[in-house]
């Protein structure tokens, strides 16, 4: 693993946090502030982590996927829709409805991934274009259906948003969650926890199993894989769809874990930041997760700063300006991509359609 990368990440997070602590110390104890920062960081990093994992599976098999944004958006919508259907139309209890919603979200992601796979593998459409198509398609479809179902009179929901079954319940991780103040960090919702577990799983799958070896071979040198009888097309389809499932799970976070409502465009570019996380993480799960945490941290940073707006000392006045603070994650991403923190190398055949 690339320790340089990780130490930089640790450094960035520490700096961000200490700034907040220094500013907020008059208002609250460091321990409370840091706990809250960490809790937020981990939670908001969830869709980024899952998005990045999605990208990793696609691209390790040689398919560039900038459609993650769209996949998450669509999944967020259809997952939420399914949950509501279950709950209001079929009168199923909230929790099962939500779980059904998560499943639906995952499947939606998979479905859009299937489309991406067909475009980029079968029809050999330029893969970045294919991803863009997914993004634009997702915006159109979700916007339109959201309207049709929840506003237009005479729709199945009578033109108004019905009682949503709420969001996934928090899970107190035994013992850890009982720690007095810090416990809050381990009081998280299911998808957040799932994301972290999936990081570990993905790592082992990619680097220590047959599936992983073949996936990476297909992404590095498909002809070589073909020559030893590996079905390149199948491997790519499979991995893109797995990626879709992961993106779908990421989408579920928005409407089933974070808030029980859907907005057109609610993913708000997270899919792209997830891509940046994937690249920064050098296409490896742990690296991507770490990167996702940086973005999570900078988001937590902004939010906390605004709570402490009035006590920001004069010499740091610029921190009072939300617009300027808001730049943090984006500038961070660009610095990362400039390779200041070490060059990244994509899979050799990433983005290249396979021709026999």
């Amino acid at each position, binding site marked *: 693993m690339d320790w340089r990368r990780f130490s930089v990440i640790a450094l960035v997070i520490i700096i961000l946090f200490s700034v907040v602590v220094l500013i907020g110390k008059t208002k609250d104890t460091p321990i409370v502030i840091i706990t809250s920062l960490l809790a937020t960081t981990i939670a908001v990093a969830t869709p980024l982590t899952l998005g990045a994992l999605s990208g990793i599976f696609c691209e390790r098999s040689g398919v560039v996927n900038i459609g993650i944004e769209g996949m998450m958006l669509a999944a967020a919508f259809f997952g939420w829709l399914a949950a509501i259907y279950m709950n209001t139309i079929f009168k199923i209890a909230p929790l099962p409805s939500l779980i059904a919603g998560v499943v639906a979200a995952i499947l939606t992601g998979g479905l859009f991934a299937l489309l991406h796979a067909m475009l980029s593998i079968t029809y050999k459409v330029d893969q970045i274009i294919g991803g863009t198509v997914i993004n634009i398609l997702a915006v159109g479809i979700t916007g339109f259906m959201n309207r049709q179902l929840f506003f237009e009179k005479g729709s199945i929901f009578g033109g108004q948003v019905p009682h949503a079954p709420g969001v996934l319940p928090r899970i107190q991780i035994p013992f850890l969650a009982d720690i007095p103040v810090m416990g809050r960090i381990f009081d998280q919702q299911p998808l957040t926890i799932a994301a972290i577990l999936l990081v570990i799983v993905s790592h082992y799958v990619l680097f220590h199993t047959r599936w992983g070896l073949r996936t990476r071979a297909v992404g590095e040198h498909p002809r070589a894989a073909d020559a030893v009888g590996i079905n390149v097309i199948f491997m790519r389809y499979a991995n893109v769809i797995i990626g879709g499932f992961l993106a779908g799970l990421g989408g579920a976070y928005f409407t089933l874990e974070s808030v029980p409502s859907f907005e057109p465009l609610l993913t708000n570019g997270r899919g792209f930041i997830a891509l940046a996380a994937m690249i920064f993480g050098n296409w490896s799960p742990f690296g991507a997760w770490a990167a996702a945490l940086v973005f999570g941290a900078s988001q937590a940073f902004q*939010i906390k700063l605004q709570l402490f707006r009035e006590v920001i000392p004069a010499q740091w006045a610029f921190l009072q300006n939300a617009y300027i603070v*808001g730049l943090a994650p984006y500038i961070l991403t660009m610095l990362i991509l400039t390779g200041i923190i070490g060059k990244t190398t994509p899979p050799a055949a990433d983005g290249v359609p396979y021709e026999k």
Partner: protein
Amino acid sequence: PAAPDCTKQDVFCVGLVTDVGKIDDKSFNQSAWEGVQKAKEDGIATVVQYIETTDSKDYDKNISTFGDAGYDVIVTVGFALGEATDAAAAKYPNVKFIGVDQFQAEDVPGVAGLNFPEDQAGFLVGALAAMMSKSHKIGSVLGTDAVPPVWRFGEGYRAGAAYADQEMGTTTEVFVVYHNDVGFDKTFVDPEWGAATANSMIDQGADVIFGAGGKTGNGAVTAAAQRGVYAIGVDTDQYYTLPEAAPRMLSSAMKLITPGVYDLIKMAKEGSFPSGNYFGQAGYAPYHDLENEVPAEVKAKMDEIAAGLLDGSITTNVPPVKP
């Protein structure tokens, strides 16, 4: 299906043009549209139509689409359409325009600016929040303060809490966060940010959260309900529009857009249409499920404050626009 001819005397048509944004925003576009629909249900209007604006450069075009079709009343929602509305009023002298949230510096014939004392609504729930808080920390999550009504809500909330403090001899810490760090397209439709911000406030000890600013506010309100603290909604009685938050919904800071729009349409029909600023009502919603969690003296205090604001014995000292 050929649309009935609005140019005819006996056909009374009402059109609505949204701000950039959707008519199903569960917030001011939607409330205004509901007012229009109510007018139709009550037989005041024969035809009602809306057009959603997709780009600010289309304001004029969208308004004239109604104007040219001979509509009698055109509702333009949002301060951003103010100038376009005034311009259209000159172009279509015998059409009545209802400008929601459009403060009229000087009267324009045919245009009624429908405004609300948001600061008072904010003041009320601010006081309520301060009185209901056990930790004496309360929060408010709002859209961008570039929008005066939003700013008035936020500052009103602050003032209300302060008033309650001096009445009750408490000291309450008030978090007020405006969502300024994104563009206009986003600031009112970022529930996830709203939720994260609310959560952060709750981590900080806040036990009442007031969410004001379209979906962003909704996100905060639902997140608050999630964490089991008191939630306060905005604009309409969100006990109904945000069912998932209903159980913890303490109240809502209401600006009664729907009736406001409805009344103005009615006046237009009856020929008693005012021009200049028309002030709708602001207030706070009933406690609903939490009826019996709110102590009697708090209820009493709230009634007192409401009365005071109405007769002017209490003032919020919040200017109409951010200085």
